[in-house]
């Protein structure tokens, strides 16, 4: 499970940084890997993918965090053992005057941890919303919490806010806390048992029970036999009989004492009680926590947007558009022609390019008629275009060219300008007027397109005019 957790931490971290990889590269890479992975649980697919990715080890932190978790476990077990040993030394303390009080001993060593365990279990089974009220008081004395805080403060490993920086990892965090607690408590009971066993072997212990209440020994026997039920049929020596129970009752004012040998017979019952009601539940809980922690670790690799997206890339056909290398927009070259305002006079020639405007509409552009007008079109031959230009040659040294402003100037139009220069010379001032008959005025961006295109000609006698 350590390896799984280390992988989970590394995978989730790596996936987060992988978000900067080009989306298409990710799709290609993961689909290629996905085709080599057999179907199975999601986490196994993720692990198989991880094995195929094989990132450099030195970039990963999972092992370090897992090692810190291991260290925390060890420290908790040690502290638990020392605490258990201290508690046992105190509780089993027998000076020879009064026997060790069985009820106090079992209450402190076994009863209290059992209550804590019951509270933990209650918190686990409580419906959502009521857990916090049970868990919050437990947090105070939860060794797992101490370990988590220590890790965060001393090593910067934010284990519980999340092992993987994800709020939804709380299932993992909860079971890690419980696992830590079990480690601590198992250490505690180990300490208790070691000391208890040593005291039993190397000292003379005497156990007894006492009560102010007028309680019949049979009641106590019933309770103790009930406690001993789990081992009664295979270890009868560890079940106290009525005689022993009766003989073990003591009164502090009563000087008549039962022999120490008799009172020492309790040791097997005491040790079995600690093992069965103290250690065994914690071992079982530790196993459950380990199993659940393993599941929670697996689930870190089964749910979440990054994991969903990864599984998607692994399992579903890669839908891609292979696009070619990019091409940037061409840079504008040359000096943009000067802008002017259209003035149509009687003696200026007008060339209407590609039927940019009708004769009637042309009339609206000026107060009087324009006498020299030629309709010239892209679909005409160069010879036909030349003849139109010759018809305009007698006019003033100024030629107005009306064009469709919403259409971009093609190279065919620039060819036409060159043709004008061939026919009419370079002294003629050419005024290009992009019109927009669908609007009152040509759009500024369209006029800019025309200006930029005509700039390529680098013609000082070429102007761009606007007409309203």
């Amino acid at each position, binding site marked *: 499970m350590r390896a799984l957790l280390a992988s989970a931490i590394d995978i989730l971290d790596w996936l987060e940084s992988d978000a900067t990889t080009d989306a298409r590269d990710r799709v290609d890479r993961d689909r290629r890997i996905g085709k080599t992975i057999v179907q199975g649980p999601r986490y196994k697919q993720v692990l198989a993918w991880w094995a195929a990715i094989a990132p450099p080890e030195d970039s990963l932190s999972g092992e370090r965090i897992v090692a810190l978790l291991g260290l925390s476990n060890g420290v908790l077990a040690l502290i638990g053992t020392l605490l258990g040993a201290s508690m046992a030394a105190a509780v089993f303390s027998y000076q020879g005057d009064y026997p060790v009080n069985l009820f106090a001993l079992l209450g402190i060593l076994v009863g209290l941890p059992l209550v804590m365990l019951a509270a933990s279990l209650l918190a686990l089974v409580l419906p959502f919303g009521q857990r916090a009220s049970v868990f919050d008081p437990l947090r105070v004395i939860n060794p797992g919490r101490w370990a988590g805080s220590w890790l965060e403060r001393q090593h910067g490993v934010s284990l519980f806010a999340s092992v993987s920086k994800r709020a939804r990892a709380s299932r993992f965090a909860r079971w890690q806390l419980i696992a830590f607690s079990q480690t601590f408590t198992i250490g505690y009971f180990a300490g208790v048992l070691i000391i208890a066993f040593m005291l039993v072997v190397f000292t003379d212990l005497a156990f007894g029970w006492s009560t102010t209440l007028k309680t019949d020994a049979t009641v106590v026997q019933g309770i103790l036999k009930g406690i001993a039920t789990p081992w009664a049929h295979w270890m009868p020596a560890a079940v106290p009989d009525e005689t022993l129970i009766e003989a073990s009752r003591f009164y502090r004012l009563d000087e008549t004492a039962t022999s120490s040998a008799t009172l020492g017979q309790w040791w097997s019952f005491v040790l079995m009680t600690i093992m069965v009601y103290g250690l065994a539940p914690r071992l079982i809980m530790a196993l459950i926590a380990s199993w659940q922690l393993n599941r929670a670790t697996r689930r870190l690799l089964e749910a979440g947007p990054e994991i969903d997206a990864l599984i998607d890339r692994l399992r579903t056909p890669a839908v891609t558009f292979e696009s070619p290398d990019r091409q940037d*927009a061409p840079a504008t070259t040359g000096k943009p022609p000067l802008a002017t305002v259209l003035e149509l006079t009687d003696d200026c020639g007008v060339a209407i390019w590609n039927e940019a405007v009708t004769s009637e509409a042309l009339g609206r552009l000026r107060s009087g008629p324009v006498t020299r007008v030629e309709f010239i079109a892209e679909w005409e031959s160069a010879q036909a275009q030349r003849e139109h230009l010759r018809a305009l040659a007698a006019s003033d040294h100024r030629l107005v060219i009306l064009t469709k402003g919403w259409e*971009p100037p093609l*190279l065919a139009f620039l060819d036409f300008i060159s043709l004008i220069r061939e026919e009419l010379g370079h002294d003629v001032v050419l005024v290009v007027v992009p019109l927009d008959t669908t609007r009152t005025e040509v759009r500024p961006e369209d006029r800019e397109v025309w200006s930029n295109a005509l700039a390529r000609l680098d013609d000082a006698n070429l102007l761009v005019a606007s007409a309203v």
Partner: protein
Amino acid sequence: MNQRIPTFAVVGHPNKGKSSIVATLAEDDEVAISATPGTTRKAMVHTFSIDGEAQYALVDTPGFQRPGELLAWLRSRTDSASDRPGAIAAFIRTHADDPRFVDECELLRPLVAGAGILYVVDGAKPYGPEYELEMEILQWTGRPRMALINMIGSGDHQASWKRALGQYFAIVRVFDAMHSDFDKRTSLLRAFGELDEQWRAPLERAVVELERERSRRRQRSAAEIADCLIECLTHCERDTVADKGDTENDKARLSRRLLNHIRKRERQSFERVAGIYRHERLARESTETEILDADLFTSENWEVFGLSQSQLAVTGALSGAAAGGGVDLLLGGASLLLGAGIGAIVGGVTGWLGSGELARTRVLGNTLGGRVLQVGPVKAVNFPWVLLGRAWLHQHLVSERNHAYRDAVIVAVRSDTNLMDSIPDALRRALGDSLRRASSGAPDDQTYQKLSANIDALLGHDPATLDHDPAITTAD
């Protein structure tokens, strides 16, 4: 270029939206789109593949620049209709190195290689006779062809365009490259299949896979939004602050930090959702998430090892009781549990009073604790709904947005607007339950999965039905 797959050359006059159509159909926001004519100077092949297997290709081509001269050349070569495709091929061979016809060669080459024709015009601008040159040249190629009337501006000259195009093209469709939704895009792809029987199957497969991909994208968006919501609803800012510092100032600082974290996470989520829809370069404008101080849970504690002052006192009391209890045991109960009682009191009081000193104790260069101020999580009841509403709106805008459209997405929802009025009650209740669990402070993977599933269901609804509400901006 693999001509065994259906290939479509997108051709036409410069600046009529050829690249926009390619960008939209190829879902590629890197395709250069510009008002400057001649932006596309080389034929660019965009191949749609499923698992590396090419299904069809789109070729973005330069526009016609000298169609008159080209057509004149073709006419001079042959009078026979059967020789016209050959004349086109001959033109390319003859002018392969002619700088005057670079664009024409680039756009005709894929047609000679077997591509179908998608002829693009701008239906918002008037029809002109100069277009007949281009249409006639395309007719000469003999290739299957479809005309697409793209709507770039606000004008409407569709009728005249349809009359003209109908004479040269078997299929004429109106397709708005900027605003067509997913269904229109797939419908157009299916229409490509009508040009040639052999192209129908691969195009249908492409459409089916695109529809599946769209469904997966919605699920992944829901997962991302769920993850973001869980983080934003549970996040809090904590800091160790000075013993006698300005608490209000510290609170304000942490509140700002919390708000910044939430905004940053929301932006990150928006970017990720945009990435799912392949909008890698999407500009975004968004109103800021509003969080008032009153919406924040705030607490202030002394903490040592992560334990608050009261927790430390309880721990001290328990420890004292245990120690005192040990003394009681040593005395065989003769102390009447006074040891445990006194121990508990001493331990508790020490824990309470001594927490400050203990917190300041330095071990290995670090203090054991300090006065810890925590701000957050946000407790405002409508906060999850506002976040969810914004995420829903953003996902909707992004998923319906075409890759030719380069303006910023605007996400603006007023915090007092309830987008959820339009969804079924059952879904609203399920979302409410999921959000409540997500806000619990300890959401787990099941919470995430349920929330994700419910958000997926939500994303299946259309917030645009609330377009009339002035508090919501869905237009971009």
